[in-house]
């Protein structure tokens, strides 16, 4: 158990799947999720419960990829063009803040995917 209600919500949501949240995931998420919250606050993005949970499950996938040394396939280059350079730089900073101390050199796909989550949250906020 942790004190973080978001990690507990995520744990409950994926409890009956093939890949439930384990202790090592909790420790990793306890490091990464505050970085995500800080970034959202810095960009003045309000995360509702759905967006927060979506980001948490994305974060779960990412921390598992870091642990396994896995990389996602490259995306269609057109995807990154829809995201501002500033958002990409901010996402890169966040990804590296987590991955670099663990010796993980994340590829651009991770950066784009995280930036897309923030972008979606921003668009929902503005709509």
């Amino acid at each position: 158990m942790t004190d973080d209600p978001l990690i507990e919500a995520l744990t409950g949501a994926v409890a009956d799947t093939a890949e439930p949240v384990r202790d090592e995931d909790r420790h990793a998420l306890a490091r990464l999720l505050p970085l995500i919250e800080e970034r959202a606050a810095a960009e003045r993005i309000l995360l509702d419960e759905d967006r927060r949970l979506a980001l948490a499950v994305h974060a779960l996938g990412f921390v598992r990829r870091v642990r396994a040394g896995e990389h996602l396939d490259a995306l269609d280059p057109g995807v990154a063009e829809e995201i501002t350079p500033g958002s990409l730089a901010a996402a890169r900073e966040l990804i590296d803040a987590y991955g670099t101390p663990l010796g993980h050199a994340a590829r651009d796909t991770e950066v784009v995917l995280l930036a897309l989550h923030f972008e979606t949250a921003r668009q929902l906020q503005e709509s």
Partner: protein
Amino acid sequence: MTVKIVIGHRLGKGQAVADGIRAAGGEPILIPGPGADMKVGDVMAAEGAALGISFCGSGGAGAVTAKAKYGHDIEFGMRSPQAGITAVQQGKTVLGFGFLDSEELGFKVTEALLKKLGESA
């Protein structure tokens, strides 16, 4: 009676999966536009769909949201048609994949779903 399967793709894709679903005898409902993965649970409820397929980078956001909002049994983080077949056989109703827009995926998952529904009818 046709079996409806909802598709939501983070980048607004999913056409190939829809073609595969149709080829296997299902009725695909493709949610248009970016961020569609987050609407899978809502559209399933509105359409009375038997299955939802959500695509995003890590393969989980839409599925987990559908679980939280509607209590669906989910599987997530899948990267192959075979994983989807297994999940359907286990009775999962929302499947979360990475970006895998293929006709084969739509066809095989639909085939497994129709078989499963036939067994339980």
